[in-house]
């Protein structure tokens, strides 16, 4: 899967799961999702479940760090690391 599509997939997942009234294209890679989209803990949980289902990865409890969920790019970077860890 090309790298770019992970960011796009994350944005699409967010729009779908959080019922955002914007398109994925309106979300930048560096959009601060908590400040700018009002994402709360319920929403982050939805994102986590969505990422796990979509990418087949699993968040460890010690991996819930706020930096991970800051932007679509930071989320995508985390997913990439997890996928590389699975393949390695």
């Amino acid at each position, binding site marked *: 899967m090309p790298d770019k599509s992970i960011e796009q997939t994350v944005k699409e997942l967010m729009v779908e*799961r959080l*019922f955002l009234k914007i398109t994925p294209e309106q979300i930048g890679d560096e959009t601060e999702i*908590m400040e700018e989209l009002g994402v*709360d*803990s*319920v929403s*982050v*949980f939805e994102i*986590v*479940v969505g990422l796990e*289902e979509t990418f087949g990865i699993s968040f*460890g*409890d*010690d991996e*819930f*760090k*706020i930096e991970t*969920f800051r932007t679509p790019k930071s989320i995508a970077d985390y997913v990439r690391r997890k996928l590389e860890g699975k393949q390695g």
Partner: protein
Amino acid sequence: MIPRDEPFYFKSNSRRLFGTWQGTDGPARATLLFCHPFGEEKKSSHRAFVETARALAAESVASLRFDLTGCGDSEGEFDQASLTFWRADIAAAWGELSRRAGAASRALLGLRLGATLAADALDQLERVSALVLWQPIVEGKEELDAELRRLLIQEMMTHGRSSAERSDLMAAFERGERELELDGYPITLSLYRETGALRLAERRACFPQRTGILQFARRNPRIEAFAKLEPPIEARVVEMPPIWARTDYITGPADGRRLAQEGVLPWLT
């Protein structure tokens, strides 16, 4: 013109429970008991039940919604609650529904844990013509695990990172070294264990022939797998956000009509 709903208290053993009866204009052709979900999910979904009840009343279906012990406007505190109490509460509410139903059929609906509890109480209820399960919790333990995760995420949002892993959190909880509260609702160890032991599949033999499942927004793999067990249960999806989880979604009459049409009536008629 549907009549205004009637609030009242009724007894479950010695406890006073709060209920609201929604009647119909003319005789009801069916009646329905609503069983609400756990903790703060009840607050989020309350209006959805109200709007659905009003929409159903327009279709000549009367209903009773009520608050379990320690919840809503009922007596007791949440940390006094137990599944034993809650099963008895559902039975008592069913008695109230039956008293008012007359010749009309009686159906049972639950949302999330309310669905699982409704199924769990079936063997105590008479003449259940239909069972409607909205986003039921299939395995209690899995759901509690998910709630613990959400708690850790909440801590992360507040403090930057979560304080512990689930296993450490649970170990401390079981040793009595820390309390567990979910969205401000204190969870006792006994309630945690009882809820964790719930398995929807164990009640399947009691399900009436007319049983249906409603999922919100998308198909849930766990629920879908449960629905496909023999004999299969019809599982629909309504294009609506999870009404129990929204902190800012305002449910209106149109939602109630939709939930009535897609989430109740198909199994009542």
